[in-house]
């Protein structure tokens, strides 16, 4: 009888631990989802406030400027329809260039600027992030209409 009792407690304990673990994993999952938005979507106010997200587009030629002698820099990113200003305080990846594609992670400030904490640039000349290629194609299609 005693061993059966013990077993029930053991199984119950494992079940509770599993449920707690599942709940924690779910919470970690949902709080780490990073949605992708294009500059047009950002301008249209589709981004929920206070949420980190990914912003992708082409770096506008001639838009890159730096506060001289510091790491603070700004540039504009476009999907060929709208532009969003991005501010960044860290070192850029090697492949970051004006006129090229990039994807930034960060949050939207109250004044509409995007404060990036991570910037990813394409890996080679053939590459464009799939979502970036898609949003560029959409913008082009809209422009053609």
């Amino acid at each position, binding site marked *: 009888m005693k061993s059966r009792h013990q077993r029930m407690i053991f199984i119950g304990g494992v079940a509770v631990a599993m449920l707690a673990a599942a709940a924690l994993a779910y919470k*970690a*999952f949902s*709080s*780490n989802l990073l949605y*992708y938005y294009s500059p047009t979507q950002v301008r249209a106010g589709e981004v929920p406030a206070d949420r980190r997200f*990914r912003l992708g587009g082409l770096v506008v030629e001639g838009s890159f400027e730096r506060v*001289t002698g*510091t790491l603070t820099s700004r540039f504009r990113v476009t999907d060929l329809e709208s532009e969003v200003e991005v501010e960044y305080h860290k070192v850029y990846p090697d*492949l970051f260039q004006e006129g090229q594609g990039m994807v930034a992670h960060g949050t939207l400030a109250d004044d509409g600027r995007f404060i990036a904490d991570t910037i990813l640039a394409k890996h080679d000349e053939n590459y464009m992030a*799939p979502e970036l290629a898609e949003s560029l194609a959409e913008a082009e299609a809209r422009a053609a209409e």
Partner: protein
Amino acid sequence: MIPELGQFALVLAVCLSLCQAALPLAGSFTGRNDLMQLARPAAAGQFVFVGLAFAVLAYLFLTDDFSVEFVFLNSNSDLPSAYKFTAVWGGHEGSLLLWSLMLAGWTLAVAFASRSQPLEFSSRVLGVLGIVSSGILLFTLLTSNPFQRLLPYFPEGRDLNPLLQDPGMVVHPPMLYLGYVGMSVPFAFAVAALLAGRLDRNWARWTRPWTIGAWLFLTCGIALGSWWAYYEVGWGGWWFWDPVENASFLPWLMATALVHSLAVTERRGIFKSWTVLLAISAFTLSLLGTFLVRSGVIQSVHSFANDPARGLFILGLLLLISGGAFVLYALRAASLESEGGFHPVSRESFLLANNVLLVVATALILLGTLYPLFVDALNLPEVSIGEPYFNFVFLLPMLPLGVLLGFGMHAAWQKMSGRKLLRQLFWPLAVSIALALVLPFIFFGTNSFMTVVGLATGIWVGFSSFLMPLGRLFNAEAVRLSRAQWGMCIAHFGVGVFIIAATVTSGYSVEQDVAAREGQQWQLAGYELDFRELRRIEGQNFTADEAEIEVRRDGRYVATLRPQRRDYPVREVVMTESAIDANPFRDVLIALSDSVGDGAWAVHARYKPLIRFVWIGCVIMALGGLLAATDSRYRRPKELRAGVKPTEGAKPAVGVPAEEGGR
């Protein structure tokens, strides 16, 4: 003419692999010995011709034959010769050929080593390997032919991706592929057992060394990849939960589970269908990884091409090979009977917990890796999953696993008193927790909840791994440890080292991004950095800006670091070459980024304590694996059959049946 020779060799290899796939299997079901005996010559011939194709491709690279498209895209006459050779696997087509070569090598090894096994069984194993091999070779030949000519052709090639021009690249892919592809061997053993509808402990004994072998190469390959990423692209990070990294890590987790469940199957004749399922899953994840990396659905330095036809082909192959195996499993698994039971407190229970926790970790990481792809395929808003998720869902099952590991190693098979186990391990556990509380204060002056948990787990795992050898040292009557047991202790010690290193380097690293000028001095975690000068230098196929930064501690000279920012004109790429001052206990890493105006440069400085032990821990694990895989009972099957007693397990358990079962 030479490229066509390679092409021809590849075609012959495909033919032989098809023979190896079809005939021995047919023979094993019709009982025709002549067909079954074809398996070994076919495997040997396949190895010769895949090897020839590979050698031809290497020759084309070394002789700068840019009329071949693959060479044109991935090499250049200015490229140093060593990199011309490694460029063979610097692109999609060549890396597939390397995959095939590895598979042919494993197949050949199995063909030789399986001569003492029943012909029916070995011909099924080789047949299954033949199916995998023909799939991959056909894929190479039909969608990614490395010998494709280019007309008209150009006198100069487009150069190898500068990221891949690095010594780490010489060993990382072959090592990783050895492990990846090696998982096909336990897979083939599992499918052969299902085909026969019979699985005994001999099966587990044959499968174990192969599994451990593949696992140890996978371990080394992943560690090398992490090391390479750290100094080449890492900016001081060593693991990013990038889908490509996950693609190699998921099979590793499964392989680790498999290694442990095989131990139970060999020893006790239970967990049979579970072991088979793990073997199938581990190889499925290897194939899935190949699909993810090679099809272009995810983007990284590893995905060379975005050709949908290729993705479709691999997906088809995955469905055929893994799907077939899973269907077979569903039909046959019920026929694999357990030979006994076990109590809640026993070695079996701990190994079961190990398996469950590893599978949970695999599933959660797989979810995070695939979810964005599913969402994308369903045309929902695009999404990616941040690193914190992966860190969390990895630690969630792994910390309990670490705690249980220390107990499990000392638990007896079948049945043991839980109180006795606790009493035996109380002091080691208490000491580990005490050390975890005290050590960070001594070395770093601070502490946090996660570092205490991580350190306590790491020290506990490392400590308990050596209780057995220590016990032997102080007690002459203790059971002598077999080589496999030494392997287990050492591998687990490596796990402990890894956990300690990962905890310390995650908790106590210091990272700085600064705008620095010549002559500027600043502090990094107790080190003084002095930007001496910046100059321009010329390399063989690049030009570079090089900074000279002196590192001092308490006024004493430590090192001079020369990070570079290289410009490769052929590919029009800029590359950051970081400079590292390494010693076993800490790295100081400096990377030079662009000029930010006003004479200042963006400089990336990192202090990474114990980072070296992250990889050293992996190497120790692999070393343990090497000892375990070469244990005498795998090498001398004849003596075993004559009744030499193996000595595995911490303590001889009550009522353990004789080692030899079945046939």
